[in-house]
């Protein structure tokens, strides 16, 4: 019998079409798959792209929008606060920061094995991966404080009990990674590769980290809650005004590189509605330094609830997105077209619906690009059947100051959009905020007004540092609504009224027809009404680490959890 002879072959695994580690890093084409995956999974941080049916937007938590439908993750956080045992603000969960970081390290460590890629390109790929890792760490730095630093792709057999590094060390790592990456990265990519890391994007990551290091939450000797010997995990140990100078210079560096090297600019053609719309909605516009280029081109995935695409949460033509409406708390931040404040009816005050329409029509361009009030077609898609009053009305919660249509200006039937991770405008506002803190009011006003005036508003002339600070903070809230800045801005500014009408406290919105639900047409009046009371406690300045990870015994929990 010949069985003995073929014994070894008989038990051999059959040839399969699967890719193994030996085959993935052989050619440029294959390696690009690993690179693409690193980009998507790193840059998707905090965004509802993973097809969750109960995902949320960061603005659901900041008081800018209601918490959305009752099944979203946001509801529990808004009403009960964050807890170590529950899903938290970053949705993905703390543990899921590390798989994409690992992916980036795997690419960085293995790209040299690719046989058909020029050495220069390999160096750029490595720099891209460092910048991506820096981005994810910068986001963790803002959300968690000090976190464990991973310097390579770890093996399961390595000692994995890596403790949290002090805040300063995490900051230094981010800055050094960004510096190293920016030195190698191109200022611009060829058209077909637009969207990959550039020098300006790496500098923007660095700038965002340094800005948060300068802000009061971390730039202090006294943390928000005492952790004793481990206070260095949640504050920088001293209040140092120089951190603002560093932040200002970092922001200026972004502006210089982006405009001179990358060809970016603040779009200002004199038509504020169109300009702001273009800056926030048009893929790869001149203002975008880095975007999440993730395209779900089927609206709502045809209604498949097990596979909700990102557009289901942002595109107001989708039922799910219609659960998110504007709150009065945020509405009050917007200026009128003439730069003055709008007077809205106070809490529990009722006014006629025509008054509502009149006041809405007086709002500034950024408001009109971002929202669609009731009984109106969207200003940002003029004449488009997809954005008529009836097209986006659907099935919302019944209350709300207006519908949210940001990112979809002149999108028409296009389902997808590119979430702008860094816009050049953020560098201007970062610079304005930092210069104001260093007392350089002129520089601050110059940077601020570039953005403020682009929105069609008269220039700001305030020179009092405190008052100007409030104006700049208000500018952030308006300019970057729904762009995942606000929630952490509020916390890092340590605003004194954070718990009474911003993140916590009464969250207000508008009810219609004597306190009831809004109608497609024929509304009679509107009332500003408390829709719920959100919870705030100081522990929520930073996110908890999940209890399941704490139970492994190597992590120190943030205070209060």
């Amino acid at each position, binding site marked *: 019998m010949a*069985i003995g002879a073929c014994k070894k072959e008989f*038990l051999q695994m059959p040839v399969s079409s699967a*890719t193994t580690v030996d085959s993935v890093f052989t050619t440029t084409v294959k390696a690009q798959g690993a*690179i693409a995956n690193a980009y998507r999974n790193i840059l998707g941080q905090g965004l509802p792209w993973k097809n969750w049916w109960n995902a949320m937007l960061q603005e659901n938590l900041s008081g800018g929008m209601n918490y959305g439908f009752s099944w979203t993750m946001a509801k529990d956080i808004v009403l009960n606060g964050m807890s170590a045992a529950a899903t938290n603000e970053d949705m993905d969960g703390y543990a899921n920061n590390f798989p994409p970081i690992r992916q980036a390290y795997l690419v960085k460590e293995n790209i040299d094995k690719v046989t058909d890629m020029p050495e220069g390109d390999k160096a750029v790929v490595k720099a891209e991966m460092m910048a991506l890792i820096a981005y994810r760490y910068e986001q963790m730095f803002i959300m968690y404080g000090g976190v464990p630093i991973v310097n390579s792709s770890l093996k399961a057999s390595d000692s*994995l009990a890596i403790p949290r590094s002090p805040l300063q060390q995490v900051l230094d790592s981010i800055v050094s990674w960004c510096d190293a990456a920016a030195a190698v990265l191109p200022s611009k990519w060829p058209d*077909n590769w637009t969207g990959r890391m550039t020098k300006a994007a790496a500098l923007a990551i660095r700038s965002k980290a340094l800005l948060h290091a300068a802000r009061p939450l971390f730039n202090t000797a006294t943390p928000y809650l005492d952790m004793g010997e481990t206070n260095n995990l949640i504050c920088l140990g001293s209040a140092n005004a120089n951190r603002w100078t560093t932040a200002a210079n970092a922001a200026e560096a972004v502006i210089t590189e982006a405009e001179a090297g990358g060809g970016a600019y603040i779009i200002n053609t004199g038509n504020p509605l169109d300009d702001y719309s273009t800056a926030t909605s048009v893929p790869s516009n001149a203002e975008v330094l880095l975007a999440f*280029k993730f395209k779900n081109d089927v609206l709502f995935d045809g209604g498949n609830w097990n596979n909700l695409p990102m557009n289901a949460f942002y595109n107001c033509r989708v039922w799910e997105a219609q659960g998110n409406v504007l709150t009065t708390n945020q509405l009050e931040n917007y200026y009128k077209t003439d730069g003055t404040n709008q007077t809205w009816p106070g809490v529990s005050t009722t006014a006629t619906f025509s008054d509502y329409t009149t006041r809405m029509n007086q709002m500034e361009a950024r408001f009109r690009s971002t929202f669609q009030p009731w009984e109106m077609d969207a200003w940002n898609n003029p004449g488009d059947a997809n954005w008529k009053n009836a097209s986006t009305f659907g099935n919302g919660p019944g209350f709300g100051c207006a519908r949210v249509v940001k990112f979809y200006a002149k999108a028409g039937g296009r389902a997808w959009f590119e979430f702008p991770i860094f816009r050049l405008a953020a560098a201007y506002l970062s610079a304005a905020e930092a210069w104001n803190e260093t007392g350089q009011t002129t520089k601050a006003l110059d940077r601020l007004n570039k953005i403020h005036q682009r929105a069609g508003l008269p220039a700001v002339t305030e020179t009092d540092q405190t008052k100007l600070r409030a104006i700049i903070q208000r500018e952030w809230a308006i300019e970057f609504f729904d762009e995942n800045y606000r929630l952490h801005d509020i916390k890092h500014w340590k605003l004194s009224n954070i718990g009474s009408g911003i993140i916590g406290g009464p969250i207000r919105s508008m009810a219609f027809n004597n306190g009831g639900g809004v109608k497609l047409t024929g509304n009679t009046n509107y009332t500003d009404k408390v829709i719920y009371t959100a919870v705030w406690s100081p522990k929520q300045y930073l996110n908890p680490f999940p209890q399941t990870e704490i139970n*492994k015994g190597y992590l120190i929990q943030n205070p209060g959890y």
Partner: protein
Amino acid sequence: MKKVILYIITVCLWRPLNAQEAAAAKTDTSVVDLSLTQYEPGPFLQLKKERSVTATSSVSGNVLYRTPVPNITNTLYGMLPGLTVMQGSGEPGYDEATLYIRGRASFDNSALIIYIDGFQTTAAYFNYIPPSEIESISILKDPVALATFGMKGANGVLWVVTKRGYAGKPKVQVQLLSGLQQPVHISKPYGAYDYARLYNQAISNDNYALNGYQFKYTPFYTNDQLESYRNGTGTNIDWYDEALKKNGRYSDANVLFTGGGADTKYALLLDYMQQRGLYDVPTNATTSNAQIQRFNVRTNLDFNFFKIFEAKVDLGGRIEDRRNPNFYGPALWSMMAYYPANVYPIKDPATGNWSGTANYPWNPVASLNAVGWASTHDRTLQANFNLKQKLDFITPGLYLNEAVSLLTWTRTSASKTATYARFYNGVQTTTDKATDITANGALPVGQYDWKQINITAGYNRTFGRHAFTGAINFLQSNYITDAGANNRGSNTNTNIFYHFQTVSGRLHYTLNERYLAELSFGSTGSDNFAPSNRWGFYPAAGLGWILSKEAFLANNKLVTYLKLRAGAGLSANDYSTRGRYLYQQYFTPNGTYYTGNSSLTSNSGISQAYTANPNIFAEKSMKYNVGIDASLLNKLSVTVDVFRDSRSDIVIQDNTLMAVYGGALPFINAGKVINKGIEASASFNSKLGAVTYTAGAMVSYAKNKITYNGEIPPVNDFNKTTGRPIGSYMGLTADGFYDITDFNADGTLKTGIPIPSFGAVQPGDIKYKDLDNNGRVDQADYTKISNSELPSLTYAFNLGVNYKGFDLTALFQGASGNSFSMFNAFYQTVAFVNNTNVYPMAGNAWAYYPDQGIDTRASANYPRLTTRANDNNYRTSTFWMKKGAFLRLRNAELGYNLPASVLKTLHLDKLRLYLSAVNAFTWSYVGKHYDIDPETPAGYPAMKSFNAGITLTF
């Protein structure tokens, strides 16, 4: 006459073992192979039962035939100590029960394997093998027997032997049976009046918050509507009555030819079975009842030639035809369960078309009549060839044996389909249009084939007081399945080839006919593992002592047979549900990312799959078994076995790695479970005047505990599944209902009452205990609330009486220690949500509408009704967990055997007429209190049947 009586006694016993039974079988005129009583079924050796050191329980095919059911698994209730049989659906063609040997010892794959005539087969092949084809079924559960199966044996083996011919005059046996089948139980919802009445409560409850946190009665149905439902003028449809017939039918006919001479023996069996289901629709060109028919041919031939050769040619062929309405199975039954009685008349009165609405598109009656039918056509062939060379000329007792098995199965499907337009009140309600029926040709939908070869060298010899029997075997197995069915874990699907080799052996030694010892081993090489890590070696040893052969018991009148035995050994399982090739590092496609400016380029992403573990290997089982077999006064036989199974190396994902690792977690061999238990069986027979009576009982108990499963450390210690039995229910602890006094005026819970995190609550909702006292009720308050659904205790007892040719037997089987989750009867348990129905179970729901005279606060046994999804109430908690215990009368039979004198004049050997009842009675906790069948709570119900049959031998 006496012979017949003795035969009946024999087949009533579970473990025919003593001399009397053997004698009875020998003199029986019917076709019973003697090997069952003489030799213990099992691999390689022909070993007399009395000399066995293993705990093997067997049952004969003739006993199984007495339970007339289409699926062989449903004949096994209470037949084999150590075998747990869990009843499933009663749908024709889809009615297999789930089998476990000695409970469950692994939280990974715990499926047993099935051998037919010495070769492994699939469960699908076994399920529809007719009992008339079976000589015996045994379960191998003992360490010594299972070691020889190497990496396949850990979960136990079901060992099936088919009927063979034997030397003697040709015999023909004809058996005919037909019966009516009815559902064991159908739980019916409320009629239209109660539905509407309670719906009014539910909708009012839902308006509680809108009405300023007050219970204001805001009915949906008017009093006039309610009155019309009450007096019968309103629509009130009992969907079960409308869609179902009173009875289904079951018929089986078979003919067995046996006979042969010294050199040639044959057994030829033809069997036809047909089952027609419960749907009230004819089977014709455009519609079909649920049905299966089976054609079966088996030819087992034995040849001896040239003195040294013995050959066997066994061919088993089968065709299974299943046909159903095109809308059928669980979907159809859920429609019947959840479409309210008042939803619409069957046909729209205004147009005469089938009724249907957007919410209720699948009118059950229209689903049977208007959408056509679907069918499958299965062909199976098992062909085994065996050639033995007796090498006594080299040394007496030496032989070689080669055997090949080819098993192949294919399934094709065909259907005729149509759609119909739905109407309500004269208006078409959906976009469906009535279409003509369309035939869809036969498409292949499934297949497998299994090729195996066994090469054995064996030796049997007795030298004076020393008796040896032993064999060494090489098995090579090549299984190819269908990609569509190949989905157990990672890297399956297109990896359809399953290869393994096992070298195994047994050596049995008897000293002085009373001291017994056996060594066995299996060594398997599996293609699932890394090349350097493929082979595992699993030895076992057993000892036995036949005390009744000792001088001090030799002439004892009381103890006629007494044996003690013990065994210990290893076995394994390489078929993890986690997947194959876990040693190989894969990269898998993972989404798409875009680059580009004016036009986007899509870049397909790829990322590392789970981290490879080059050391991944088979799950290991260390088994111990101690047993005793005894026969007292030649009337009572008793067998008791105690076992312990320590599983280790169960494949788990390594959840203990820190988050910073960032890789998909590797699979490792680390899980541990301990399973232990006891089995006992006894049979008794005696005679009182002309009345012969028999009694038997068996009990199997198995209890397992997870000692390690790599669980992510939960928030609280009491959340852990570690340390608990496999499949324990984890959930919240219910603590009554919220009362009106628990709430503030603004609808919030009063200070100090824990806040549940599963949505807003109101009075009448289920309140839960905050076990960790953190003021919140959430998943961190989960703990073990109930046992698993697998019973820890199964038992059975039978009784038989015999008088002048008449015989009456009854078999009862029951289980306990299992839990029943009410969500298994989902539509019955969850009232109204998603436009569903309401059942009497919710008849006393919490409600408080004093103006309407409704106040059930004190007596409520169901949370307040709601028409909306309610994540707080309808979630796993102690509220919905019930005892799963039950007892059934599985089979009862009344028969009459014509006396020998009459038979002689008719030139017959045997003529038996009988009536039997399957599943005639059930007693259960959930049946009594909640109107639910404990084993088949929803979907196509299990069947009970009343049958008449005849057996004729000439």
